[in-house]
């Protein structure tokens, strides 16, 4: 027989009354991936996280309760930062997680940490059974990589450093997005500098 686990007792609320923990994790991960996309396993292997083509924000205090951004690179958009500025948090996002040459895509649904649309690397050609075993191993790796990100979040979330981390996230959200910077009309100083450089 396999021994029982030491996890929490049955009957407890699976979210522990902390419905906000998952959305906070994903919101933090979005910022962390934009600032420093790499995470490191204890064995030194590097995991790179990129936010892909789907972001879903939700918030009870804004006029619109839900904002869904699709296609392109919504993480770099005006709309994504505007959603955070209006008090929303990220509840679902499609991300790319790369380790070595293996690139996996997954949509994380933050409240329950559900995975949808998981896309694993194509296994090496071979017997169907071996390919399935390789895919199961890839799925395990994906879970390990996401656990690594969650663990990094929790480390700072329960530490006295959290308010400073939130301040850094706010500063990031307060800066113009790539979209905004591209769309903003050039200032006189910028135009003069460019003209000077061209002369």
């Amino acid at each position, binding site marked *: *027989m*396999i*021994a*029982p*686990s030491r*996890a*929490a007792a049955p009957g407890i609320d*699976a*979210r*522990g009354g*902390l419905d*906000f*923990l998952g959305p906070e*994790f994903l919101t933090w991960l979005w910022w962390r991936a934009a600032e420093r996309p790499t995470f490191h396993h204890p064995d030194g292997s590097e995991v790179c996280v990129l936010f892909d083509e789907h972001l879903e924000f939700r918030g009870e205090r*804004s*006029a*619109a309760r839900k904002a869904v951004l699709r296609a392109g690179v919504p993480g770099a958009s005006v709309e994504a*930062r*505007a959603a*955070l*500025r*209006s*008090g929303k*948090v990220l509840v679902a996002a499609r991300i790319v997680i790369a380790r070595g040459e293996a690139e996996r895509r997954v949509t994380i*649904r933050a*409240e*329950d*940490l*559900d*995975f*949808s*649309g*998981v*896309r*694993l690397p*194509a296994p090496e050609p071979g017997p*169907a059974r071996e*390919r*399935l*075993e390789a*895919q*199961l*191993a890839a*799925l*395990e790796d994906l*879970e390990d990589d996401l656990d690594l990100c*969650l663990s990094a979040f*929790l*480390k700072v979330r*329960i530490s006295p450093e*959290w308010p400073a981390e*939130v301040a850094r996230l*706010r500063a990031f*959200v*307060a*800066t*113009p997005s790539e979209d*905004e910077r591209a769309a903003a*009309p050039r*200032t006189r100083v910028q135009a003069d500098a460019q003209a000077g450089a061209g002369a």
Partner: protein
Amino acid sequence: MLALRTCSLRRYRIQGSLPAPASDEMAKRLTDRRFLPLAAREERSHGWVTADNLLVTRFDADTLLRGEQVVLGLRMDRRRVNARLLRAQLDLEVRARAQASEEAGGLRRVSRDERAELRQHLAEELMKQTSPSVDAFTVVMDTRRREVRLLTLSRRAHEALCALFSDTFDASLLPLTPFQRGVELLEERGDRPEALHALERTVFWEAAGVGDAPEGLPASRRMPS
């Protein structure tokens, strides 16, 4: 043959003891709760099948083990009478009976009890003629990690899995939510998981107004205050 190139899933932690993956006990328990086809009057049924073929309910190491993991199928059949079809048939039957009653010199009406009886009879007849909808979802049981993955996000399937797992193994499944997984990760790292209980919601941004432009943009692109 099952393939996992794309999938959706939820993870669970196993709470309780399980038989060893390749043991006769594992096969016996799964066989005891194997999928059984719907009887004539049954509306729904669920049970274990093999992952490779939803018609096969013979469990052994060959059909179950993929590497170190147990892979099997959760089959769910459901038969439902189409309500509009039932209503239409009932209407026709009631009219026919009323007319027959009138022609026999009685009243041109069908009593409430008679109507209910007729409805029951028609529902049973239609049920017999209705083919069930068949779903089968992959379940991956990682006994080393004590983890179960159900490869769908269907709410009905998750409810069925938790009930069936408990019936089969006398063990329960705890969803690995951010909180549950967080507790485990903190324990693994030697941190106090109780720290999670003390957390309060973070307000990342005071919702001052939708569309507030950030600092650093020209004033013309800011919303008027």
